């Protein structure tokens, strides 16, 4: 087990900068997820930690030692690849024990480690099969087993669930979490799926265009996003953004969305946004679950308005309603019993206690 530190790490390919200087401290035993869209640099960062890519600038430390020039095999790390990378000509047991055999571990030790990992991952009956006889989920477990038996300092996962179907992905997520609870090895996990990030991570690192947008616990990122990118990336369905302006109406701070719609801000929010320029172009950020049907007893900070719905998506547990506001498509969640119909108007309520205000130009959350 070890901690991992990245200091001002940069990766340049010819004149393209894939990773533009990131600083990251991963504590021992922590499960950190690097998440972001394709091309944001998360896989490159992972591969630099692994030693599969050279570091253009900056330092990477594992367990306190600088490993910039240390080859992968001496870094004491293990990696699980997106397409498993199992050795096709070896059995499951041989695949898992390959690293140990290279280091000339005693046979008894190898066998006990392989058995232990196979039991943990529920693949004990498969140890004599070859990879091509296994299903996708089984192969992924073998890949994890290969990593576990090495008892490395750090586990690295490179989008391991991307090749699995949706149902299997949910199952394997739970497996991975169980393994981490048992083995407690420091883990760096890369994915483009924010659901995986939220469910697996102790802390999430959101990356975009080679930079870190925000680091935080899943809850922090969900409820206190720092930038528009993070606010829109985390959470599904995504947060709604509506262009707006602040205005003073009879002494109280209001937020104006359209010519017809202007809401008074709840006191806490009004206090926070008091210093914002009244002419500044702003964005109102509201998660769909905070746009619901109007209730008989509105709470303080909840404002109502009426609009015509474009599309409804009954999900069973709730119904998603889509409507347009100032050209932006907005999504709200209403109770499935509400009579929501496409093309018909519906009275909705927005919970402004949970609103976010963003500067449209900089994308920063105020």
């Amino acid at each position, binding site marked *: 087990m070890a901690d991992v530190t990245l200091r001002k790490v940069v990766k340049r390919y010819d004149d393209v900068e894939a990773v533009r200087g990131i600083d990251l401290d991963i504590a021992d035993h922590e499960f950190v997820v690097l998440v972001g869209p394709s091309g944001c640099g998360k896989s490159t960062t992972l591969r630099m930690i692994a030693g599969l890519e050279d570091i253009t600038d900056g330092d990477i430390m594992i367990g306190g030692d600088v490993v910039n020039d240390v080859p992968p095999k001496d870094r004491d790390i293990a990696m699980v690849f997106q397409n498993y*990378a199992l050795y096709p000509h070896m059995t499951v047991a041989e695949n898992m024990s390959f*690293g140990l055999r290279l*280091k000339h571990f005693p046979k008894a030790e190898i066998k006990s480690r392989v058995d232990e990992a196979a039991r943990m991952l529920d693949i004990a009956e498969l140890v004599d099969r070859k990879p091509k006889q296994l299903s996708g989920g089984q192969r992924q477990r073998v890949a994890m087993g290969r990593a576990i038996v090495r008892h490395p300092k750090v586990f690295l996962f490179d989008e391991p669930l991307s090749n699995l179907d949706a149902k299997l992905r949910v199952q394997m997520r739970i497996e991975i979490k169980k393994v981490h609870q048992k083995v407690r090895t420091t883990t760096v996990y890369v994915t483009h799926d924010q659901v995986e990030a939220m469910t697996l991570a102790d802390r999430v690192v959101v990356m975009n265009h080679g930079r870190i947008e925000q680091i935080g616990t899943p809850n922090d990122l969900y409820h206190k996003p720092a930038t528009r990118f993070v606010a829109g990336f985390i959470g599904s369905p995504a947060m709604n953004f509506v262009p707006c302006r602040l205005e003073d109406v009879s002494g109280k701070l209001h937020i104006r969305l359209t010519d017809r719609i202007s809401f008074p801000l709840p006191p806490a929010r009004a206090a926070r946004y008091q210093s914002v320029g009244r002419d500044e172009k702003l964005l109102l950020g509201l998660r769909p679950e905070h746009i619901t049907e109007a209730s008989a007893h509105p709470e303080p900070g909840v404002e109502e308005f009426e609009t015509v719905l474009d599309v409804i998506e009954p999900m069973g547990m709730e119904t998603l309603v889509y409507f347009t506001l100032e050209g932006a498509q907005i999504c709200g969640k209403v109770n499935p019993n509400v009579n929501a119909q496409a093309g018909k108007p519906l009275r909705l309520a927005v919970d402004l206690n949970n609103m976010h205000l963003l500067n449209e130009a900089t994308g920063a959350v105020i």
Partner: protein
Amino acid sequence: MASTVVIDKAAPTRSVKYGSMSRDRAWALRWSYFFLTLFAIFSLVPPIYMLITSLKSSAEISAATNPWWVFHPTLSNYAELLSSNQFLRFFWNSAIVSIIVVTITMLISVPAAFALSRMRFWGSATLATGVFLTYLIPDTLLFLPLFKMFATFGDWTGIQLINRWYVLLIVYPTLTVPFCTWIMIGYFASIPKELDEAAIIDGASWFQTLTRIFIPVALPGIIAATIFAFTVSWAQFLYPLVFTTSVDQLVMPVGIVTSLIKGDVFAWGQIMTGALLGAAPPLIIYAFLMDYYIAGLTAGATKG
């Protein structure tokens, strides 16, 4: 309201459609087999005819009876050839040359293909294309300058190259190495890089990665290239014709053509036997390893 299955009575029933489709398919299949049989006959006539003739005595051949049938089969041609020192010498020379050339070819090609397909380094792309292009400089262009070069080399160093079978060890690789390298580049490139990376992370040195992971997985491609190198070496005609002239230095193809055809007296029974025996090794390898053979050729076809 419970949903019910609605049967559309107006729609045409499926059996009619299936009937016409399967009848079309049946005819297409019959024509296919018909033409395939024709082509197969076309392909197999010469080797079968070789076999038939090889079983005939020269008396039967000159009697000009039905050439497609053997009336008095005899193995005398085989007996004579296989007991002829000269013929055995040809076979031996061919075998030695082919085996050594295959070894040399593999020793050069495998590392080169590995480096060109998996290690990005300056000029690797141009080199790979260049390898392919040299295959397009034919032996029929190179044999004359090579002849002069070897003659001159012999004059300078006293090491006689002309008319020695071992000169073939030098020139054959020019024919086998480029294509073998190209086959293997195509094959090696299809092995995912993650396999190497997994091995590296598991702690393997590059040599261990090569020998314990890569070569076992790449074995089919290597076998295909080996078969190709052997077949090409065995079948060579121009180079040995030009570079070797004494009877004891000849390899099979040249030996059979030049020594069995004595002036105008064609001992066809023996010639065909010799030709068949000369074609035997590649044919036998083909019979047993046909899939590797074809895989090697087509490694380039689907991926390029």
